[in-house]
């Protein structure tokens, strides 16, 4: 996938940005308890996450160290707090605290000292000044205001108020980005995405269950560096994080191509790192940078550990990717009778082959318009891809009503 074209540099910052970092700035960082080496290393990591050329590192560094702290207001609605927890895992410890120092985190219920009235005052003061970054976790129920209230106000009321004057909204996690779990069939509370309620403010969606915090810090660094939001696909997902299919960057891909599949948990193939497709892996239908970034400071990721991807960064995955172990992503060009072995061998080197999710093909066709090549290969049929009795799945044990229940995206 191509490098994100960087936005043109605002001229007033260009001289500092492209030159070496000035010593005053480093002195200030040192006061904050950050040494030069770890700071530069950190900016290198950010730069790499953003898929920028290394020469951009000094510029990222300058922006990250700038004195003018933008305000962050972090709202949580129908959520599980998983994204706030993910935020606490920001990597590279000292510097991650700088990221906290770097933004003024004026409202974040999980960590803030104030409660009740005092917390609402802090929120309203930050919002009143405008220009804040609004980070949102969780979906918004439209089925009744009583489903989610905070301080006596409904989620909708708070969201509308807090998005006024915001510079941008960053949706962390699949629930605020696409409706997520609360919006899964039959969507009892009529939960929707933030983008369905708010208009007029640019949105960045960082789906994932939860989002990977490295993508959040990189988005913020990008915003501070270029004074612009990163380039995004038609679902408002930054290309630097959601530009590639998992399957295209997966270290098990060689085994997929060679037709070597793990067939049962703990079998020889599983132990040898074979492809997890036959155990339900949704990597072929999922766009996310998990294989590159991994999780928890690059320690591991689900496929690396041995469980298939479930497609958690895709809209409606709770309905379109389930049953997780029986619904195999459709691979175009192979009939339903293909055995896994035949299938894998035929696919050798066939990087041009497109994948489509059955059940969500039409949604994908509409949403993935950013790359016409890919769009043309997205399969819009809804055919079953049970791979036959040789497969581990008996029959696609679909739910009673498996179709048309993708959450509002």
């Amino acid at each position, binding site marked *: 996938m191509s490098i994100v074209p960087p936005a043109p540099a605002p001229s007033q910052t260009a001289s500092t940005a492209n030159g070496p970092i000035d010593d005053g700035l480093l002195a200030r960082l040192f006061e*904050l308890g950050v040494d030069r080496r770890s700071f530069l290393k950190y900016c290198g990591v950010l730069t790499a996450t953003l898929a920028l050329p290394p020469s951009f590192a000094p510029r990222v560094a300058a922006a990250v160290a700038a004195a003018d702290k933008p305000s962050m207001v972090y709202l949580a609605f129908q959520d599980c707090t998983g994204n706030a927890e993910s935020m*606490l895992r920001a990597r590279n410890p000292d510097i991650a605290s700088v990221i906290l120092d770097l933004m003024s985190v004026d409202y974040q219920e999980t960590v803030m000292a104030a409660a009740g009235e005092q917390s609402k005052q802090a929120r309203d003061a930050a919002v009143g000044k405008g220009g804040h970054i609004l980070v949102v976790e969780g979906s918004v129920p439209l089925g009744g205001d009583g489903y989610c209230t905070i301080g006596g106000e409904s989620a909708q009321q708070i969201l509308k108020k807090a998005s006024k004057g915001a510079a941008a909204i960053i949706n962390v996690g699949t629930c605020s980005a696409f409706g997520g779990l609360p919006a899964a069939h039959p969507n009892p509370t009529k939960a929707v995405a933030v983008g369905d309620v708010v208009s007029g403010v640019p949105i960045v969606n960082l789906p994932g269950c939860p989002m990977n915090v490295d993508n959040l810090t990189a988005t913020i660094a990008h915003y501070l560096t270029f004074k612009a939001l990163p380039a995004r696909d038609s679902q408002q997902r930054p290309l630097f994080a959601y530009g590639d299919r998992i399957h295209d960057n997966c270290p098990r891909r060689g085994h997929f191509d060679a037709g070597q599949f793990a067939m049962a948990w*703990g079998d020889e193939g599983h132990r040898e790192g074979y492809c997890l497709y036959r155990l339900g892996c949704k990597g072929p239908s999922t766009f996310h940078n998990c294989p590159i970034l991994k999780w928890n400071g690059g320690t591991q990721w689900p496929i690396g550990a041995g469980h298939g991807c479930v497609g958690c960064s895709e809209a409606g995955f709770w309905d379109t990717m389930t049953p997780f172990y029986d619904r195999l992503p459709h691979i175009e060009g192979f009939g339903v009778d293909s055995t896994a072995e035949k299938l894998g061998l035929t696919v050798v080197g066939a990087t041009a082959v497109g994948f489509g999710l059955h059940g969500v093909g039409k949604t994908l066709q509409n949403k993935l318009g950013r790359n016409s090549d890919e769009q043309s290969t997205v399969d819009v049929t809804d055919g079953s891809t049970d791979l036959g009795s040789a497969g*581990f799945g008996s029959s696609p044990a679909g739910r009673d009503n498996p179709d048309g229940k993708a959450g509002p995206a």
Partner: protein
Amino acid sequence: MSPRIVVDPITRIEGHLRIEAQVDGGMVQDAWSSTTMWRGLEQILIGRDPRDAWYFAQRICGVCTTVHALASIRAVEDALDITPPLNARLLRDLIGVSQYVHDHVVHFYHLHALDWVDVVSALKADPQQAAVVAQSLSDYPRNTAKQMTAVQQRLQAFVQGGRLGPFANGYWGHPAYKLSPEVNLLAVSHYLDALDFQRDYVKIHALLGGKNPHPQTYVVGGMAIPIDPNSQYAINDNTLQQVRGLLQSGLNFVNQAYIPDLVAIGKSYPEWTAIGGGLNSYMTFGDFGGAQPKRGQTDTAGILPSGIVRNGDLSKVEPVDPMKITEDVARGWYSYREGDGTPLRPYDGETTANYTGPNPPYDFLDVDKKYTWLKAARYDGIPVEVGPLARMMVGYAAGDARIKPLVDGALQTLGVGPAALHSTLGRTLARGLETKLLADQSLGLLDQLVANIAGGDLAVHAGVKWEPKSWPAKARGVGFHEAPRGALSHWIVIEDQKIKGYQAVVPSTWNASPRDAKGQPGAYEAALVGTPIADPKQPLEILRTVHSFDPCMACAAHVIDADGTPIVEVRVQ
């Protein structure tokens, strides 16, 4: 009577909690606990593949990110009579035990400490003196004057910047803050260190679970992570060494920072051993026994004890009878067909949403009627407290060989008797003690795993019942897990290979429970009564007691239905 105090949102917790309290004469006379968010997961699970349930249920909560996955898997395994292999059980225990250490450290430093620690006061500290105090408490290597100075300067720069961010509008300078500036400074220093610690320690979950939050290697019948000492794609010696190092770092941090800091706070706030007790009845399911408990029963042979203590009577521990668990909805926004006050067992549970609360924006709830998205969970008809205090109380009463000396030692250090444990501080203390217990035991669990692998056992999954066609037409089961916040149970009914009914009775359902049909208050409500309030506009004392429970509201308010009763439209008055 003065108007009620409202604290909403209660921050530094998981989820959305509102407390309304009647304060007269400088003291809480009555309190109401309300959960103000609901997602309706019950409807969402009905009809799905039971093997997928864990992934959905895990999203009940992202803070206690492992616990619902585990309880859900155990429920399905109980229903289908599946015994996962020993390796899988030990891997689950290691993930579970490290969850405790992680979760409790984060709770103590990041969710609870600011109730006791005045951050602004730390600016006045003498950093040299702070280091002397810190070194007198423990040999934690970062208790140096250099470190204290750096932290103070950092704080200074932060405050001078004029943007206090998450520390803005705190109750700084409140008369209930009692620590010296030096102890405040050392606590702030450890607050920052704990941020680093938790980030690194949780790599255990990445190594064994693929990621955190929401580890992804659970699977019905075992674990989806292979073991093979001769493969780089499986748990091997390299993985086990890394896990060992991280477990050891947890033990070190708990011994050198958490426990000494806890003791320092405990000694400075002795009055809080007489405030915030509440129900004095406790329940714990027990866990981490390695062996599979009998079907439908709690784990009675685990590191964490199983049992009931009633009315503070430490002379008797009753065994848990799961069939004595019921819920009613007299005061929750639901309706039951046989009447809202009828106590129903989880297998027969109903969940029909019926919001009758005020139309937002509102100032007060109508606490004489229904006022929360929680059901009232009861054991044998009485409200019980669950969580760290319940576990330490039951273990203490049962004379548990590990828990008894641990608790006795702490009581001696603080110079108080066992009755002092029925309190806000007792709860906070119990959480620290069990963290120490589990951090100690975690290395032993790893040793067991290593020994089992060394014996040639590589199995991680019992595959015989993996295929849905091998299942009976009808089955039902319960999965117990003693989660960091308390006794957790998931109940599943399976029919024709699909989920017919699913219900979870979770720790915060017990603790944050509203009144029941008989008018008996829940644990938070009972604990708040009698809490002194110095300034009704700054209800710091309410936060202390509520935070001592470590609320987890998304957990509490998901209430999953056993029979798929359709949800009625929300009515707004």
